[in-house]
Every structure is written in C-alpha cells, then in structure tokens.
C-alpha cells in the first residue's frame, strides 16, 4: 500500500489529556485505572474514567449533540493543536477533500439509557428533549466532528466492536488512495456507559481488579474511555526523519464465534500477515508489538499464539490496557497514538499491573519500559463478532 503520513495525532484517556501527559504516564508506568464509581453503577470492577468530560461544553450551534461521548470527542479535539491542524488541512485541500472516519462501539448510548429511566409513566414515551440521531446513533460522533471541523468530504462511523478505530485507518487509506479525498480525520471515541459495564459483567469478562494482561492470574478486562485522532495525508516530498507513517493495514474475520476469539488465533494471524504484506515487510522488520492484550484468559492466549507463530518468541510485546483500560471502540486509535509515541520517543512501554507472566504464553511480554530506538510497531485490535485489524506504523527516516 501507499504509506500515509500522520500529520498530527492526539489522545485523551485516563492516563492523560493530550500526548505529553500520556507519554509521561507511559514513561512513569502510571495506570489510570480506579475503582468504579461511575454514575449509578454498582459493579465490583476498575475503570479508566477521563476526568472532567461532562464539564466540557460543545459550541452552541451543536448543542443537539450534547452527550458524554461527544463531550469526550470535543475534549480530545482541543488537545495538541489537533483542531488547528484539521483547519490547516481544510485550507490546504478544501473542505470537500477531507474525509472523516471515526470508530465507536456505543457512541452516546448512555443518553438513551438515561432517557429510559425518565419515560412517561403512562404512555412510556421517552423525554421530549431526548435526541436519538446526534447522540445514540453510531454516526453521531463522526457527524459531530464533521460539523465541528467544517468538513464536507465523505464521513462515516466504523462500528466493528473493539476493532472499530483500527479499521478506520484502513478505510481512510483506501479512500485517499482512490483519489476521492486528499486527507482524513481518523480516530475513535468511546465513553463509559451502563450497556458495556453491565454487559461485559454479564459475560463474566470484566475483572474485579485492575486488568493484568498476560498475567497467569488474569481474569478479565477493565473498561476505559478514550478519544484519539490522527490526521492522515499522502507522504510529502519533504519529510522529517522523525515523522510517523502508516505503513500497513490488515483485516480479517474469525468465522468462529460472536464473543470468543478463535482458540488458535487464526483470524488474528491472518490480519497480522495482511498488514505485513501491505507494508511489504518481513516479521523481522517489526521492533515492538502493541498487543490487543485485553487481559481475558482467551484473548491473550489466542493472541500470543498468533504473534509467536509469525514473529517467534523474541519480539518485545506489551499491552497498554493495564494503564488505560480497554477503551473498546476507541482502543485501536488510542493504541495507534501510543505506537506513534513509541516510535517518536524510543519507548517500548512495559505492561503495568502484570506481576507473574503466564508461562504458557510464548510471546515475549515486557513488564519494564525499554528505552531504545523503535522504527516499526505493529498494533493489534480484535473485537466481538470475530473482527480483526492490525496496523503497522514506522519512522520516516
């Protein structure tokens, strides 16, 4: 595939609002997971909540979009000069030539959950003030960002569970390469809601402790929330050596089960191989793998098998979900930004909370940070429905 430049990127999660505090948390191995006190939820679990989301206001003309998910998107948009970078892209390419591709799994469904508590006692109707399209609908956050940034190019939400905001890179890559657009605002936004907190709990997939990916005692995920964005453009002729490029995208399906990964990680393996092929790279060209690494027994086992079957047992791997929690539909974009930070700052972030690595997992899981040049990073994202996406990022020079 044609490599693309990450002209700008930003992330907001429980470990930091913007890339500077995010990097500092990774360097200091700080986790943002805390005991769940979200809304009225009474589940014994840990979550990665972003502080101050509901204090973030939206511009007056876009008030119909008011919900936690869009507030989180707005909060993230204002970090790292990202909004200004999108405006610069509009000036350069024209508003019709910049597309929007945003991953989300639950968008603003919290708004509907709250509305169901306030139904009319006689008619059962939802409150008059409740708006479905700009809040609950999966497109709402893509539509919000499109209107907020004044973009008139193609716009879409990718909603493929926890692979959503990795897959946006592949969709945007295709559309830029087709010539329909020149630049793309890609990323993901997913915010805390009762559907996912109680849903994962019902499947016994959420841990009562902070999640411990690849630990022998791992027992589930910690749900988090995040918004992370990148501005993708064709690679210009004059490129800084430390610029970060998207080099490969690979997607696949498990054809196995709705809520369990293929036990041998066959779908994951296929996505990784497709990403390597798209980047015209060999496994040995990758320096570090940012794992999907959710901390469920089955995910980590399947992913470890997929990784070692391709790369062998010596490539450093870690999951940053012990720090950020599993931010579901935003995790692909969040971990894309973490991968970009790893490349730019020469950091392989060690996995936090993991104390005793499962000896049956053959991948080389690193618990301590490694400060070393990082040229190529593979980032994995897998989701319910057996959907898989792997991305490869690299240094320009």
């Amino acid at each position, binding site marked *: 595939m044609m490599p693309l430049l990450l002209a700008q990127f930003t992330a907001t999660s429980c470990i930091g609002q913007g890339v500077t505090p995010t990097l500092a948390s990774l360097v200091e191995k700080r986790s943002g997971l805390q005991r769940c006190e979200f809304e009225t939820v009474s589940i014994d679990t840990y979550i990665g909540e972003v502080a101050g989301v509901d204090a973030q206001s939206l511009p007056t003309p876009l008030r119909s979009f008011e919900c936690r998910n869009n507030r989180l998107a707005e909060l993230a948009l204002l970090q790292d000069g990202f909004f200004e970078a999108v405006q610069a892209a509009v000036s350069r390419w024209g508003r019709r030539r910049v597309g929007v591709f945003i991953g989300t799994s639950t968008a603003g469904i919290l708004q509907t959950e709250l509305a*169901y508590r306030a139904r009319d006692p006689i008619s059962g*109707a939802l409150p008059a003030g409740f708006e*479905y399209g700009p809040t609950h609908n999966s*497109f709402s956050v893509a539509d919000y960002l499109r209107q907020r940034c004044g973009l008139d190019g193609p716009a879409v939400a990718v909603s*493929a569970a926890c692979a959503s905001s990795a897959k946006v890179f592949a*969709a945007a890559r295709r559309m830029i390469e087709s010539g*329909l657009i020149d630049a793309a605002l890609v990323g993901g936004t997913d915010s805390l809601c009762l559907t996912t907190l109680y*849903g994962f709990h019902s*499947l016994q997939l959420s841990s009562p402790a902070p999640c411990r990916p690849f630990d022998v005692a791992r027992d589930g995920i910690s749900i988090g929330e995040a918004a992370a964005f990148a501005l993708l453009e064709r690679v210009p002729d004059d490129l800084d050596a430390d610029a970060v490029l998207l080099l490969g995208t690979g997607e696949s399906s498990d054809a196995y089960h709705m809520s369990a990964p293929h036990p041998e990680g066959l779908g994951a393996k296929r996505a990784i191989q497709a990403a390597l092929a798209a980047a015209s790279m060999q496994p040995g060209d990758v320096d570090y793998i940012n794992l999907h690494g959710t901390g469920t027994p089955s995910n980590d086992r399947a992913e470890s098998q997929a990784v070692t079957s391709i790369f062998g047992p010596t490539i450093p791997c870690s999951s940053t979900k012990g720090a950020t929690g599993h931010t579901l539909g935003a995790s692909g974009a969040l971990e894309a930004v973490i991968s970009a930070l790893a490349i730019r700052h020469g950091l392989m972030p060690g996995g936090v909370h993991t104390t005793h690595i499962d000896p049956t997992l053959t991948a080389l899981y690193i618990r301590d940070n490694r400060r070393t040049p990082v040229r190529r990073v593979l980032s994995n994202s897998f989701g319910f429905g*057996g959907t898989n996406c792997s991305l490869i990022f690299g240094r320009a020079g």
Partner: protein
Amino acid sequence: MTVAAFIGGIGVLGPGLDSWPHTAAVLSGRQPYAPSVTVLPTPSMLPPAERRRTGRVVKVAMAVALEAANSAGADPRQVSSVFSSSGGDGHICHEICQALALPSREVSPTRFSNSVHNVAAGYWSIATGSMTESNVLCAFDASFGAGLLDALTQTAVDQRAVLLVAYDTEYPPPLHAKRPIPDAMGVAMLLTPGRDSGSLARMEVDLSQEPSEKISDPALESLRLAIPAARSLPLLRLLASGASGRVVLDYLDVSRIAVQVAPCV
C-alpha cells in the same frame, strides 16, 4: 476523480419487495408496487443454536447477502464484505435499555454479544466460513452511500471482489417515536474490479452537489425516504431498466453520489 466497479449480483428484500427479480419488475413498471410487511427468512445456513439467537438485523442482512452472492455465483469465502446500516439491532437495544432502567440491571449476555453493530457481519462470517476483510459502517441516513463508497474503494484500490450489504431495521416503541424506521429492508450488491461472465453493469461513481433523483411512484418515493437502504432505489431502477444512464443518490446533507451506469450486454 471517479471510482468504478462491475456489479455481478444483486439482492433485495423490503416492504413489498421480496427479491431482486421482483424488485426489478416493480421498478421497471412491469408489476405494480404493493407495499406489505417485510417477511424475513430464517437464516438456514447458520447452525441451529446460532439461528435461534439471531434477530431481524441478521436475518435481513444475510438474506440479501446470500441472494447477491448466489446470483453472481460467488463463493462468500473468497469475497470481502461491507456491512452498512443506519443502526444496530433496535429490539436488542430496547431490551438492554429497559433492563438497565430496572434496579436489578440484569443484562442478558447473549443479547449483549448480539448488540454490537457488527452482529450481521459476525454471523455472516460464521455461517459462510469467510475469514476475509469485513467492514461495518454507519452513517445514519447516509449509510447506503457510505457503504457504496467503501465497497468501491476496496474494489478499485485493493482489486478484490466485495459484497456490499446495506440494511436497516425498525426500533420498537418508545425509541420508534424518535427514529421512525417503519420496517426492515436490505440491499446487497456484489462488486468486482474487472468484468466477468456474470457482470450485469459497470458503475462509475463520483461525489456530487447536484440534487438527488426522486421516484415518481408516491409509495416507492415514501419508501426511499423512510428507510436509509432504500436511498438506493433510483440506482436499482436504472439497473432494472437495462439502459445506460446516470443517477444521483442521496448521501450526506452537503454531498450526494453520482453513479454512471453502463450495462454489460
């Protein structure tokens, strides 16, 4: 800048439209349009245990995906897919929100697994054994156009056959009052990068600011506006006519999609 592909097979299911041949007859005026409730077949290709768990979203998507793949003679394991829908499973969403409004907050694990927007893509992959790329999109009322653009860029850029599946289902009350989609409808098309013996037409697509095409039959026009997947009807009508021509489809408020069609005869 345009993107192009060949259409190798079509599937349609919706209110008063029970297959592509039937829809083609209605849209070309050979049969009157008689609106009726959409009848969804049981997805017999799924194992019985999975079949019982599937809702209307999965049924409508799989029915049209299968019709398009079969009529093109395509092996689903060899083609990628794009599933595009204006919403998830409204009935499951209602049940989960209702459960969460009660003090017990007991969410069914199966319902939660099936609440993901990519539920139809997941079951399609399980049913067919297809391990290929599958994208899953939502663009509210623009979902057909969004799916068409993604499928076309896959076909044109990555040079592979792609099954486009656009589908919508209704929300039950009380959400229905906020999102009044009247019934289930699905439209599927198999797109290929090159012409083959089964190609029906070549399609060339561009973004446009022209006004979109309406349908003169009032019942079909109201269907076009009521269900996002039905925004494809003007394109389907042109394909049904067997003539070459150009049609402009609704997409986002600020842009539309122009499709130039040339039949393969």
